[in-house]
């Protein structure tokens, strides 16, 4: 059966979308969808409540049947943990007996006893699991993994579709659990950077499935992934923070530009702890927006829907503030091909040309795609429908709230580079560098990161490895330790290109060392000498002392570049464990895994 405007209550556009979707879904998906729609129809408030700031829900009566649900999250930046906690809160309201744990804390041998398992897990780098998920991931994929015939599960995968191995870890878990005999409660949902809506949909489906499966009442719940904190401000309702200070930390002659941004949180009620990040909703570059609009003769003033609630904005405003235009993804190009006759685009999207596709996507933006594969015969609405929502940018907070009440400081590396004949700019960083003056405001929210925390015992030694902008959270750590009079030893490794121009917060570190707040500071500058020196070389030079610190219970923190630095630092730590601790490589790796589990090896890498 084909839907038509005449035989359904849908608009032409909706009909088109449904006709594209319905013929391709499996029977299982159809079943799921019908349950999902039932749940939706009985909801008291809109299903997709991602944009709702404050929820006003009637209390739910306690069901008669109590059912256990375990939620495990594997989270690097804290997104996954945040979502998992909100899912837990929702299910508790439904009177489920919810256990929520980080995968790193979960004892795998209890897996056999579980009936309902929800996994929220992100993917990093080349399809890698987050550090905290690694032991559980390995257990499940190893020989000791048990049969799980009794288990019902669902996976919410988090990722970024501009990476090749989008949501791979989630997919791996999904596939492996099936292999082990477990039954899906609801299909896995892969979330891109704008995860609010798909996450909410996943939760709705999971809730329905759990209700049906446990035979309890069909719950009436508004489903939203929302912050539970006391402040009215959150990711979906960001606070307009005033810029107090905006300075370039790099001295003259540097190859880099790094902004130190001080923002006022006064009146926001926002609270953060060292290790947390700040999300900023940036604005796209207006020149790029105008180029895009004129490339397809679109009308800048034509209004388009900017979210599923049906809010509308002029196209130009939508492209400036609501949609991502600087990154290409495979899904974007696939959608684009519906509006383009371009043969080369169709060719590029064939499955055997993944490498070419990856090369094409790298360093190109929407304007490139529109130019390369035009003419594009899409309406203004269709144009934005192929785009992802403009994601917030997360920056590790560089200040301690205790030391700077009502303020938050950031260290933002400005991204500018040249590819494919055009100058490219980091959306948020260039906005901060070029357009933001004291007195301006930025929409911000606090992003918790429980995986990057000072030890609760203030006497525990800490080792901080943070070259480049990776220095940010350590400024927060040391400010906090200075403010609270913590007595634990601290050791910072910092590095960048040039000593004279790129030693971020140099005078502050000098004072901390003088005052004894920072016990030791080792620096490495890669371009001052013929041989490039990096932080890991400094670590090696002090391997004996470093090992002693680790033996004494130090917590190791790594922040900054993931691709090179974090890998090299990890390898160096393994070397030090072997060299100084007389461990075999295997023992050293085991030791590192143990450190992760004990939260003594924490990373905030990107």
């Amino acid at each position, binding site marked *: 059966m084909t839907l038509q405007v005449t035989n359904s209550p849908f608009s032409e556009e909706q009909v088109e979308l449904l006709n594209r979707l319905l013929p391709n879904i499996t029977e299982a998906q159809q079943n799921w969808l019908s349950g999902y729609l039932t749940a939706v129809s009985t909801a008291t408030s809109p299903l997709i409540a991602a944009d709702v700031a404050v929820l006003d829900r009637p209390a739910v009566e306690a069901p008669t049947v109590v059912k256990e649900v375990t939620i495990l999250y594997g989270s690097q930046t804290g997104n996954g943990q945040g979502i998992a906690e909100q899912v837990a809160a929702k299910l508790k309201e439904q009177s489920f007996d919810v256990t929520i744990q980080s995968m790193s804390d979960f004892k795998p041998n209890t897996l056999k006893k579980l009936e309902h398992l929800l996994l929220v897990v992100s993917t990093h780098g080349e399809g890698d699991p987050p550090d905290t998920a690694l032991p559980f991931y390995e257990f499940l994929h190893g020989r000791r993994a048990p049969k799980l015939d009794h288990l019902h599960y669902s996976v919410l995968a988090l990722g970024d579709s501009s990476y090749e191995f989008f949501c791979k870890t989630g997919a791996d878990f999904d596939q492996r659990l099936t292999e082990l005999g477990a039954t899906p409660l609801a299909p896995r949902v892969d979330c891109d950077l704008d995860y609010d809506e798909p996450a909410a949909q996943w939760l709705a489906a999971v809730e329905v499935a759990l209700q049906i499966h446990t035979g309890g009442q069909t719950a009436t719940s508004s489903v939203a992934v929302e912050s539970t904190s006391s402040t009215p401000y959150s990711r979906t309702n960001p606070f307009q923070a005033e810029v107090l200070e905006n*300075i*370039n*930390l*790099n*001295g*003259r002659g540097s190859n880099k530009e790094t902004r*130190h941004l001080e923002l006022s949180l006064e009146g926001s009620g926002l609270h953060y702890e060292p290790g947390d990040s700040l999300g900023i909703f940036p604005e796209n570059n207006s020149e790029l927006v105008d180029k895009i609009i004129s490339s397809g003769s679109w009308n800048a003033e034509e209004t388009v829907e900017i979210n599923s609630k049906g809010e509308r904005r002029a196209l130009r405003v939508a492209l400036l503030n609501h949609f991502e235009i600087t990154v290409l993804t495979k899904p974007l190009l696939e959608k684009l091909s519906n509006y383009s006759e371009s043969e080369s685009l169709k060719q590029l999207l064939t499955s055997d040309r993944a490498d070419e596709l990856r090369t094409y996507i790298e360093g190109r933006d929407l304007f490139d795609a529109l130019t390369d594969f035009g003419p594009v015969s899409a309406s203004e609405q269709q144009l934005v429908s192929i785009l992802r929502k403009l994601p917030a940018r997360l920056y590790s907070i560089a200040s301690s709230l205790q030391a700077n009440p009502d303020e938050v400081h950031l260290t933002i590396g400005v991204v500018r580079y040249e590819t494919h004949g055009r100058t490219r700019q980091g959306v948020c960083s260039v906005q901060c560098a070029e357009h933001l003056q004291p007195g301006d405001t930025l929409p911000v929210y606090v992003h918790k990161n429980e995986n990057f925390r000072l030890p609760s015992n203030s006497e525990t030694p800490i080792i901080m490895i943070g070259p480049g902008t990776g220095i940010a959270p350590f400024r927060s750590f040391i400010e906090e330790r200075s403010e609270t009079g913590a007595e634990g030893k601290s050791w910072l490794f910092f590095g960048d290109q040039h*000593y*004279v*121009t790129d*030693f*971020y*917060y*140099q*005078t*502050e*570190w*000098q004072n901390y*060392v003088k005052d004894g707040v920072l016990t030791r*500071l*080792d*620096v490495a500058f890669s371009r*001052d*000498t013929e041989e490039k020196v990096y932080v890991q070389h400094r670590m090696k030079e002090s391997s004996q002392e470093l090992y002693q610190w680790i033996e004494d219970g130090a917590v190791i923190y790594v922040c900054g570049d993931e691709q090179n630095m974090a890998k090299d630092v990890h390898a160096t730590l393994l070397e030090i464990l072997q060299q100084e601790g007389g461990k075999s490589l295997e023992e050293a790796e085991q030791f590192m895994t143990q450190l992760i589990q004990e939260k003594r090896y924490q990373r905030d890498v990107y």
Partner: protein
Amino acid sequence: MTSTTRPVHIQDGPPSDVEEIKIESDYLRGNLIQTMKDSISAGIPEDDNRLMKFHGSYLQDDRDLRTERQRQKLEPAYQFMIRVRTPGGFATPKQWLVMDELAHKYGNGTLKLTTRQAFQMHGILKWNMKKNIQEMNDALLDSIAACGDVNRNVMCSPNPNESPVHEEVYEWSKRLSEDLLPRTNAYHEIWLDGEKVVDSTEATEVEPIYGATYLPRKFKIGIAVPPMNDVDVFSQDIGLIAIVENGKLTGFNVAVGGGMGMAHGDEQTYPQLARLIGYTPADQVVEVAKQLMMIQRDHGNRSVRKYARFKYTIDARGLDWLITELHQRLGWELDEVRPYHFDHTGDRYGWVEASNGHWNYTFFVENGRIRDTEGYQLMTALREIAEIHTGDFRLSPNQNLVLGDVTTPKKKEIEEIIARYELESATSQSALRRNSMACVALPTCGLAMAEAERYLPSLITKIEGLLDEAGLGDEEIVTRMTGCPNGCARSALAEIGFIGKGPGKYNMYLGGGFAGERLSKIYRENIGEKEILDELQPILNRYAKERETGEHFGDFVIRAGIVAATTDGTNFHTV
């Protein structure tokens, strides 16, 4: 000075903090080995910087960037200046090439030829200092005692091969420099990875001349060969005037107690000319210099550093006291001063034939700065010359550069390079510019109160305009500018002198002697460029109309009553 009043310059208090630093330094070692390794700062602590000077270097920062960097949470843009000891300003072509290379590799890409005939490199970062000194050392260059409370680079008239006397005088300047060097092994240990020497506890064994606290202040020696007074022999602590009889060097007239430095607002400090005290045969000159230096070592003021120069030691006690003390220490007496005559202090530019038939070529180097600028590739040209030159390089006391001992075939090759890089244009600069001199000042010198090297060229252009209007286009007038009253460019000896007081503000002095024989007198205090030009214009016009034949500007302003003559440093401030 009456016998009842104790002269202010005589020590009347405990030793200054610098004396403490010297005593505790273990013969100039201090903590330099450790602090040069400290990687948290590109600087070193002040105490070590005091010692650093004895090693020919000190810590500076780019003052243009100070405020900006403070806001950026960066420490000042610390960098080291290093001054290379080159007695008589002598360097081989190979040494020139090494200096050029180091300037590019570790320095800011330029070289400064100093007013004391030394090389200065700026902008060396801490972790390059050791390599820099080691590579200098490989080329037989060092920076020992180029700064600090010791005998500094010994100057001498650089015109090589002008006569055999000049060559002999150069040898004496080298002897003086070597013999009066500190003997501590610290330099070798800190910079050249020399083995730590366990010093004897007896200062007389470690530093037989200096002792554990070295001198109270810097000490300067220069040798002039009349009729040229290019070394400004009267500005030296010990000024030696070569006496030539029948074409042979017989000895030196000895002048003592010259010095340019003073402090603004303290009239007890003043520039002074060295006074002649006698004549020594050449073979005794090192002994005489050593004994004079040791008198200063024993009697100089070690409590107040601004009163510590030799000139105050002498002025507070009288010249007779000094002569008696010297004769006593020598065990013999100096002869009567021999006749001599000085014509001028400037250099002779272009080609000059030497006594041996070879040639010298003197480049005009504005303010001693060797660098490449658009349209004037001096540094590159000199590098090219150094690669083929078989003679030597001589740095002049006027911050110029002499190519010495050029053979006739080489002269052709060098002429070709000079022509190709259009270097003659500099030599054809106005007489005013060729007789001008400025110290480094901002942005690197920590003492500077006003610009000097970066500003004087543009001021000269404006004064040139005044000279042209007055019809004095080719007149030689000695003009000098320093950014502070310490006197590196010897402004107090200029016919027109500027001494910095604050940003854009200078004291203007007139009436110095053209041949360096008379100090100047203050004419206007704390004035900016417009006032400088407004004040100079009528005086220059008068000079054009009223001067007598051959009368120098410095003499004219005194005869015309524009300023009173300064007859002695002690009446420098008397208007």
